[in-house]
């Protein structure tokens, strides 16, 4: 009798263990791949960042943090750092605010042609980064389309050399980035706005709240988690900016618009390859992404 009552319990245990094991088997390939393709290289990146010498003959540098010290004396690196942060500080807020405005306009119930507007604003996301960079580069060329149109409209008296001017080149990159990514962020906002009860807005309108107030007092607080996610994603993306720097301005004029990733690529493969130094710079990006994400999460939590 007693053995009979124990038996099913025992077999259920093994059944559950077997299922748990099946679960582990299901997630094993993906987990191993991520460890192999992400965490393992991360550790290696740190080790390489302490080394110097040719790619075929790397050895530990003296002192170990020599590559990290060198960064702050490297003018091109400091320029690339400054450029990347310029893009980050201007582009990310402008883009996110624009995306919020678009989303709240498109979320209006009585708006006509909603789908058409959404498709149009979202369309830039379908283009390859390299492709749209080249399109913008051609449009903003000295003898290009933008200058031709601005002169025809008498907004300019002579063509502006956008891509050969340090400020102009950075401005074009920022404009291009905003063009490419605003619709993408808008979709995030739009889909979470759909879960906000519309009657809140109606009540606010009856109370006389202006659309601007509705946006800052109702929509933004309710969307805080998703705004945080998009802010972290955009920060991460901007710190890694590469395709635009290469295909739009080629880092020029004279490295005035080069990004950190672009400079790291050049250090790794283009001029005399210096794997140790490139790894040190890339590890710095990793640390910056981590710190900025942590700050954004902290700030997002408080408010």
């Amino acid at each position, binding site marked *: 009798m007693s053995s009979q009552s124990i038996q099913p319990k025992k077999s259920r245990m093994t059944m559950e263990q077997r*299922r*748990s094991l*099946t*679960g*582990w088997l*299901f*997630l094993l*390939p*993906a*987990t191993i791949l*991520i460890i192999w*393709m*992400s*965490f*393992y*290289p*991360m550790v*290696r*990146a740190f080790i*390489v960042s302490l080394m110097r010498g040719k*790619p075929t003959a790397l050895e530990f540098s003296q002192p170990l943090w020599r590559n990290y010290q060198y960064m702050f004396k490297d003018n091109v690196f400091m320029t690339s750092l400054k450029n990347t942060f310029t893009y980050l500080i201007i582009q990310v807020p402008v883009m996110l605010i624009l995306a919020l405005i678009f989303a709240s306009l498109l979320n209006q119930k009585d708006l*006509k042609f909603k789908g058409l*507007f959404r498709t149009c*604003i*979202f*369309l*830039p996301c*379908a*283009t*390859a*980064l*390299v*492709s*749209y960079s*080249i399109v*913008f580069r*051609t449009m903003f*060329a000295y003898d*290009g*389309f933008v200058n*031709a*149109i601005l002169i025809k409209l008498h907004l300019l008296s002579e063509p502006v050399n956008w891509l050969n001017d340090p400020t102009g080149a950075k401005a074009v990159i920022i404009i291009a980035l905003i*063009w490419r990514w605003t619709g993408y962020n808008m*979709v995030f906002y739009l*889909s*979470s706005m759909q879960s906000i009860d519309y009657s809140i807005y109606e009540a606010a309108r009856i109370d006389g709240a202006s659309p601007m107030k509705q946006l800052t007092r109702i929509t933004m607080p309710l969307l805080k988690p998703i705004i945080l*996610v998009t802010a972290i994603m955009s920060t991460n993306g901007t710190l890694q900016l*590469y*395709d635009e720097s*290469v*295909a739009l301005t080629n880092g020029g004029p004279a490295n005035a618009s080069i990004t*950190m990733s672009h400079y*790291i*690529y050049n250090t790794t493969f283009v001029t005399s390859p210096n794997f140790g130094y*490139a*790894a040190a710079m*890339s590890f710095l*990006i*990793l640390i910056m*992404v981590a710190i900025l994400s942590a700050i954004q999460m902290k700030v997002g939590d408080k408010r």
Partner: protein
Amino acid sequence: MSGSIFKERAKRFLMYAFLIVMSFISVFPLYWCFVSAFNTTQEVLGGKLVPGGHLMENIHNLMEQQQVFTALKNSFINTLLVVALSLTCCSIAGYGFEIYHDKWKDRVMGLLMLSMMVPFVALMVPMFQMFSAMGFLNKYIGFVLPSISTPFLIMLFRNNARTFPKEIIEAARVDGLNELQIFVRMFVPTMRPTYAAAATITFMNSWNSYLWPRVIMKTNESVTMPMLVANLTTGYIIDYGVVMAGVTICTLPTIIIFFFLQKSFTEAIAGSVK
């Protein structure tokens, strides 16, 4: 009263005007790029906005300068391999994380999510070393391997597996299906929209990726479409009609997918954060 109605109308007019202008700005560069593929370099730079008759000439010149078919073939093989493998690998992992979840599996999931914060450039140097040591340079496997398992897709499938009714699993177990059969015969068919969304977003990302193929694809035979397009603008004399024809060929597959699967694409983006 009529004043406020007038004001309301003016506001609505301004709003539509704003949306129309913004939609125009969003679409215009793409329209211009497609149109320019039909025009000569002088016409492109001069700002011609209607298609001309030079498309065949531009494509002919493009074929002469670059190995367009090789690049297209490579891009399609790379992309389709990534889509097939990553959907299989990540969907079964997401299912495993959700359906059999316990304390330790949740912890592993949390760890994997951390890798989303790792910027790719930070891994570029060691990845290049690893892949050249394994002999994966210039090969499809070199392109495919890092993209098979992504935390984004695992999260997408895990979050969607939450809506999969547990009763179906129990019923299937009673019917004598084993766990893998339940996944293949029950989960996969019901989750078709999620697979469509994941396929769309993976296709776009792989097709458009540029930095990684540039790191490991070093021969002319392994070039991909975005690399080819970037190569077009490196010469001293740039034929913009040809460049725009190349950009158009590179962009068409993703635009077509975008229009067919726009809904699932937006759902994929939205579903990733639910």
